[in-house]
């Protein structure tokens, strides 16, 4: 039974469970609702949920686990020499595609089920047959792969049958069990609420699961990478030169040039964002009247709502050429500092624009949190408003502002689209901000797009880069939040 039909059947069983549970409860109370422990609908929900939830769980787990188990079983059937896990995973994806192709062929009537199950690679032109029904295979099919695909199909057919029967049995069994327990004295509300509570806890735990997922996917692949490529060379290498032609050895994958590019661009971005953002926040919170504030604050925040791809395109097509017109070879200054549109300063400037509202609204909140009495005291002693701000308000708000700047820095380090489009592709350790450099995030993208072979060090390095990025931004965030929290407590 296809999964969608199965879900519909489950839903029907649940609705039936609800109606029956409710009716049974009312019947057991002789139609008098006051004799029931809970409201009648709770008996209905109880019957519906007892059937639905375990069945749905089994269905989900089975659907996810079945392909993995099957793949494990049929991978033994591949007898040809395989170089490593990567090559095996490629063969297995061929097997899956072939199995899907056979399914399509049977569904379209090009093959009978018996033909599909018994065909041999020598006897028939498998590739041609499948091409006729619109399934394109990359290479000729070997007997091993065909056999594995047939076993895979047989396995998944059996698996699907067992799954359907099991899920339906559990659903009907659960509903029947709940109906059996339904009497006037049964505490249906407490049972249902316990169930709902479990669902709520499960939903809240997804945050933990996500973190675990991130950490595991990074750690496993990073460890895999360090088996192929020495960790010391990665962390302290000063050259970034991946080659996709040869595996290992030929590539130089040093983190330092990327880290340098990342930090340099972030530094330029903060150089733009911090003064503008901070002064804007000071003006908005200390000087501006309510009308200016009501206009300027949302307008600045529009900058924060614009997607980063827009900033990326802005950097590539507007800011880059504009800077080149000024600092390039035939530019207004005639200094020839800049050779291409992409550079550290292009990406940094645009990223700075993106961060202005981030810095300004965080600083605005923090400056507003400084108690008015401190300002009044300073003004009362004869200080001008600017002296008050510089000597009283800002020192009081300093830890919070530092926290805000750190959060902005972590944003800048993790930003992807602007640097992918605006910063360049070559890893370089250089001081000239008009030179194109690349960053950790840009290289994660370029190492992982297009290539589905995850076993070469050139692809796996992206996970090590992701790990470094995750650790750096996490550290910055934790530190920044710590500072901001600590500061907030002082005046509350």
């Amino acid at each position, binding site marked *: 039974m296809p999964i969608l039909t199965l879900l519909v059947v489950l839903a029907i069983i649940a609705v039936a469970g609800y109606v029956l549970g409710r009716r049974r409860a009312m019947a057991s109370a002789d139609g008098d609702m006051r004799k029931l422990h809970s409201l009648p609908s709770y008996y209905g929900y109880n019957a519906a949920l007892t059937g639905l939830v375990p069945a749905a769980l089994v269905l989900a787990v089975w659907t996810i686990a079945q*392909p993995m188990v099957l793949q494990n079983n049929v991978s033994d059937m591949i007898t040809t020499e395989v170089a490593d896990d990567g090559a095996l995973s490629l063969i297995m994806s061929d097997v899956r595609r072939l199995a899907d192709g056979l399914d399509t062929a049977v569904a379209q009537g090009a093959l009978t089920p018996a033909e599909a199950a018994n065909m041999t690679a020598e006897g028939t032109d498998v590739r041609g047959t499948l091409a006729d029904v619109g399934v394109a295979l990359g290479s000729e099919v070997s007997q091993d792969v065909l056999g594995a695909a047939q076993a895979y199909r047989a396995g998944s057919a059996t698996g699907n049958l067992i799954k359907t029967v099991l899920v339906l049995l559990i659903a009907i069994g659960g509903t029947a069990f709940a109906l059996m327990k339904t009497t006037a004295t049964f505490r249906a509300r407490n049972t249902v609420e316990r169930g709902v509570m479990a669902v709520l806890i499960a939903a*809240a735990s997804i945050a933990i699961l996500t973190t675990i997922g991130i950490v595991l996917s990074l750690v496993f692949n990073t460890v895999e990478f360090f088996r192929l490529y020495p960790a010391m060379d990665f962390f302290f290498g000063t050259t970034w030169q991946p080659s996709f032609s040869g595996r290992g050895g030929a590539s130089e994958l040093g983190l330092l040039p990327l880290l340098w590019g990342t930090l340099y661009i972030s530094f330029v971005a903060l150089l733009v964002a911090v003064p503008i953002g901070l*002064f804007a926040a000071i*003006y908005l919170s200390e000087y501006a009247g309510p009308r200016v504030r009501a206009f300027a604050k949302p307008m600045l925040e529009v900058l924060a709502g614009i997607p980063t*791809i827009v900033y990326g395109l802005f950097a590539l097509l507007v800011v880059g050429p504009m800077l080149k017109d000024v600092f390039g070879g035939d530019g207004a200054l005639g200094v020839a500092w800049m050779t291409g549109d992409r550079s550290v300063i292009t990406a940094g400037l645009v990223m700075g624009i993106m961060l202005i509202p981030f810095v300004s609204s965080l600083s605005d909140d923090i400056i507003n949190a400084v108690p008015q009495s401190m300002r009044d005291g300073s003004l009362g002693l004869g200080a001008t408003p600017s002296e008050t701000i510089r000597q009283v308000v800002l020192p009081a708000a300093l830890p919070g502002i530092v926290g805000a700047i750190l959060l902005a820095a972590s944003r800048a380090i993790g930003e*992807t689209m602007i640097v*992918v489009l605006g910063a360049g592709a070559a890893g370089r350790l250089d001081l000239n901000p008009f030179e194109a450099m690349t960053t950790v995030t840009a290289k994660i993208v370029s190492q992982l797009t297009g290539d589905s072979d995850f076993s070469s060090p050139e692809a796996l390095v992206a996970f090590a880069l992701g790990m470094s990025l995750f650790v750096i931004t996490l550290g910055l965030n934790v530190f920044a939040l710590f500072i901001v929290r600590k500061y907030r407590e002082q005046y509350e």
Partner: protein
Amino acid sequence: MTASPKSSLLTVDARTKKRNAAEKRFKAYGIVAIAIGLMFLVVLLTSILRSGLPAFTNTVVALEATVTQEDYDAAEGQLLKTAAYEALLVAKVNEFLTAQGSTIEVDEDFITDRLVPKTGATIREFYKANPDQIGQPVTFNLPASTRISRYFEGDLLREDVTDSRFLMVEDLDVVDEMIAAGLITTAFDWNFITGTDTAVDNPGGAGIGASVIGSFFMMIVVLLLALPIGVAASIYLEEFAPKNRLTDLIEVNISNLAAVPSIVFGILGLAVFIQFAHLPQSAPLVGGLVLTLMTLPTIIISTRASLKSVPPSIRDAALGVGASKMQAVFHHVLPLAMPGILTGTIIGLAQALGETAPLLLIGMVGYVAREYPDGIISGFVDSNSAMPAQIYTWAARADTGFYEKAWGGIIVLLVFLLTMNLIAILLRRRFERRW
């Protein structure tokens, strides 16, 4: 005792002047900072509009032709059927030129290669679909070639034209005649909004429609997963969670996930959904799952804020008349918090809609979205692009003709974002309650 320096409240001494000047300067810095910020916004928006609006229009050449039944049969009988229709257009243009008193004669290459490329097929399909129009005069609005539309719009000057297979200098005389006769005009390009992506050599025909659908299916996944999970998690944390280790752990996790770079979520999606669970690459389902995980912290944070803003007296009243804690929350607190929750959800969705980096890693960029999905299931699991991924794809292509499309795509994306944010603001205005 020395004579004290003369000081008076009426004349400002040098030190006060300096202090006042410093005050003015400081205030000016603030104004300048805000002005710079607003200027960036204006520059950004004007460059988007200036570069993007042309993507919504194209230059069309209106050619009237009457195809008789004999012409049609003759054309269908030939080997190169589309060329036969193009020959009809050549005759038409020459007739027009003679009527205008011009002595120029055009050939087939002019029509098919330089004025309205690949146009025979359009005409043939029209007559195959509308056989009743045979014998009637029909005006075809055919999209002009890139160079001729640039000439028409004034971006390309006659002096700059050199003879090539794309445009000859003498062609411009014909074009001038046609412009004077009002045959070449600018029209709204519906194909950009409803069309699909094209191969790398045809920037003019590319449309964003298919990727809008891709984004739509992704947003459905995000809405269906992130809203219930986010609300459930917030209810637990805000209303039920005991103060213990587990709760602390969840809270720390949520606040950290909110600050994890989006590309890391892309890595998670690649490793877990594609590498491990073998879900199809570049499917809106996978994109939706990744964006769900990314949006969850935002939705949880805003939902908790709106649950917190419902005053405790509501809960106390419900408990007082005998509701269970769960009933008090689900029957009273949650409905009252719903407007705030929806506002937060829409803002979270808008954020997810514009997010690009994770989509790059799950393969939405390499895919050329040439077809609309066949149905609902196929919309979720078949490869498709999404708006931001499509914009990135266009921006990364070598042909600069796609840049205009990328800017146009940005306008479409921003219109969606603006609408969503406006809905959120209106919801907040309409339903917000102050207790």
